[in-house]
């Protein structure tokens, strides 16, 4: 076992630090060391997208990133999305459109949608499908997830105007 090293990073706007082994995955570091359990693990192989977070403005599957690689990074997780007790429009849209059932994949879906809408505020259905293809869901058949992302885009557009 290699020695642990201290990692410093900014998570949801707050400077945080903790120890990690060289092999520690970022998702384990977030969950087990920093206690941010909203980011889930569904496959360990980079397929399911349950562990999707935003790292330096880009969506990543945090099971595919080592904690060491996140040194100094700015991270946004599902816990950082609602501000002052007010849900983010994407979260609202997921709730209003029944875009979740068991809720296990939901944080990852929402973070992917967040990244998609940050790059493309007014996506077509096809673009939403491409933007979310890395996030598996067994419960919803994706129908209401796609509906929710469309609704979120509209909400966010209105808020800008």
């Amino acid at each position, binding site marked *: *076992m290699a020695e642990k090293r201290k990692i410093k990073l900014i998570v949801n706007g707050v400077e945080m630090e903790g120890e990690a082994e060289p092999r520690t995955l970022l998702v384990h570091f977030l969950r087990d060391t920093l206690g941010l359990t909203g980011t889930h693990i569904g496959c360990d192989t980079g397929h399911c997208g349950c562990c999707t977070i935003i790292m330096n403005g880009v969506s990543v599957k945090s099971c595919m990133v080592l904690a060491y690689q996140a040194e100094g990074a700015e991270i946004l997780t599902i816990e950082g999305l609602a501000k002052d007790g007010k849900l983010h429009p994407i979260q609202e849209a997921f709730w209003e459109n029944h875009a979740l059932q068991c809720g296990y994949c939901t944080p990852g879906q929402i973070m992917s949608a967040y990244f998609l809408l940050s790059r493309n505020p007014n996506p077509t259905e096809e673009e939403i499908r491409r933007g979310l293809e890395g996030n598996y869901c067994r419960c919803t058949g994706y129908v209401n997830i796609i509906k929710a992302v469309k609704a979120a885009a509209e909400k966010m557009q209105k808020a800008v105007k």
Partner: protein
Amino acid sequence: MSQAILCKEIPVPRKWVGTPIKTKEAPRLITGRGKFIDDIKLPNMLYAALLRSPYAHAKIKRIDTSKAEKLPGVVAIVTQEDVLKWCKPYPQIVPPPADKLLDYPIAVGKVRFVGEPVAAVAAESRAIAEDACELIEVEYEPLPPVLNAEDALKPDAPLVHEEVGTNLVWHEVFEYGDVDKAFAEADKVVSLKLHFHRFGCPPTEPHAVLADYDKGTGVLTIYCNNQMPMFCMALIGLSFNFPTEKIRIITPDIGGGFGSKILSYTYMMLISILALKAGRPVKWMEDRRENLAAGTHCNEVTFYVEAAAKKDGTILGIKAKTLHDVGAYLRYEPVGALLWIQVSSGPYRFKNLRMDVNAVVTNKGPVAPIRGYGRIQHLWMLERTVEQVARQLGLDPIEVKLRNYIKPEEMPYVTPSGATYDSGDYPTALKKALEMINYEEWRRKQKELWKEGRYIGIGAALFQDSGTNNFAQVRLIYHKNPFSGNSRMAEMWMDEFGRIIVAVGSNPHGQNHETVVSQVVADVFGVTPDDVFVVPGFDSWVHGWTGHAGTYASQFAVSGIGAVLGAAKRLREKIATIAAHMLKAKPEELEFRDGKVWVKGTDRSVAFWQIANLAYRNILELPEGVEPGLRVIYTWKAPFKLPDMEKKTVNATLTYSYQAHACVVEVDAETGKVKILDYAVVDDCGIPINPAVVEGQVHGSTMNGIAAALYEEFVYSKEGQLLSSTFMDYLFPTTLEIPNVKVEHMITPSPFTELGTKGVGEGSLVPLGAICSAIEDALSPLGIVITDSHNPPERLYRMIKEAQKRK
């Protein structure tokens, strides 16, 4: 007679029941505050990893854990010796000789499938536990594996379980009507060999267990994501050498189940043994490779079918021999080989049926009660068969299906096997689904497109989703099986401040029980769903339960809600008695509204909190003979009977939701790839409590069916290695594969339930029927017959090329 109502919007029969309110569970789940097993951390907790078999079939000659034990951070290791100390073999539900089959939470003596647990390690971190697994030395003596049911039945086949003496673990013949006469009178007999493939519905959260033994009290708390743990307690209690009264089971939020999370009782025991040995809490999270290899497969079935039909396509009778490959252990089997009995004639009217049922063990992963358990295989077989009858008679398959459907005026309809279909209008549902895809127009276009070499096909199917099972049906497997019926317990109380709290013995994992229960209770008490708190999750020391408790078999809207309604009425009655005394009125003069009880037509009222205060604190003012407190329990019992053992008939389920699917596909002859051009569903589950929740279930079930028909398959090599062991090879469909599905609803209320509800959820994976039909239709110019439930590009490509060569 139930009336079919066709509607885009579901009518609202009550104030809250029937309303698509936003769910109560969502706020925690969309903010990352859900609580799943992996989110729970107890003081001093260890992490587990399992060492699993790399062989499909091998003797275990020696297990040496000494190197692993010396690794710093390793606290305890469990192997077969510990398991034999703590466990008796699990009880089996099969008749002799297969009842002798030995099954434990871990391999004992030999391994029987790739991925079978051989050792378990508890360590200070998951990484250390995994390192330790690599240091465990296991000496195996590989044995030849048997990898399909037909091979397993050959006289010289290796035995999966020597103690049984055969790989055929259950065989039974069921005969209804006069099958020989039906075949003698037939204008046409159609014979088919069909294969229903092995897949699963792997949920995004794999299995998980956290076991915590309290040395002070002797209590063992098992946190798990099992979806029917209190049913599994029967197995745990009979095999675990631990006092059952000191076992407490908790399920928090669960990340999907789809039936696969029923079999995790073996892990619940294994991790408990590890925690007992370590003397510290131990958490185990299954990883995805483990999950795909060991416990989420459906019954794989080979069918030999014969159908007798009249010239006009009327089906007279069906004979089917089934070979169920149930994998290495029985666990919940051979129930999956029996459950066709809930839907023996499917949506059809034929009366003559012979089922020759065979359940066979092989060296593959054990099967689980996957979504549509045991019925999807049978319903798919019937669709393939009826379709072939039509094609071989030169008739339109859809017309033949409609001709053979049970008519709405025949409901409730008793099937050959004694099941009673409660209500429904199958022809209308199918016609509506066809209309939604512009059937007539596609039929016209299809002929032109065929000429252009484009293979367009239309398919339609209707499957029932039989819900609320009668456990007595397993007596038809073995008459001594000591369970029957179905029941559900709910506890409800008004606290001393007048707030309403409900606890139901279920283990929801996406079905929104907190939401739908609060809707039903809100209507009984004249409050809003926000005024009703439904205790989240399940805790065997908090939630009342019976041996049928759990979340499975499409039944909460019937059994769970039955219990909730019963409890609500009982509580309401007691509140009314006290309120009548306070208001100097008669109970029947009262109404419940806005958190108060009113004397109807007056402005006289008393608030819930005032009544509750009387019941809990100011008890000397209670009316004579009324017990203090406002807490009730109600146990709902399904109106079932025991099977007729001679005729082998049973009313196996209480309600029959159904879905009619219609689709248009295009098969690319150059690649074999299937593209879905349009997809429509008509769903009927009686009165929906929350239409949004119901529609979500329909979407999910449809996706699972599309996944099975086109993408997902567990493939084994000839050595018994699982080749689709990660999501790289086991193709979980994404937003790019699943089309937009149009859904409309019909309502034929169930005459057998108080609210007219029917169970919904499993949905029977109807796309298996509709898509296979559409593919066969598309390729009909080539004369291709679809005989496998799984049709990935490589299979269709080969079939198309061969057919083109023949031409």
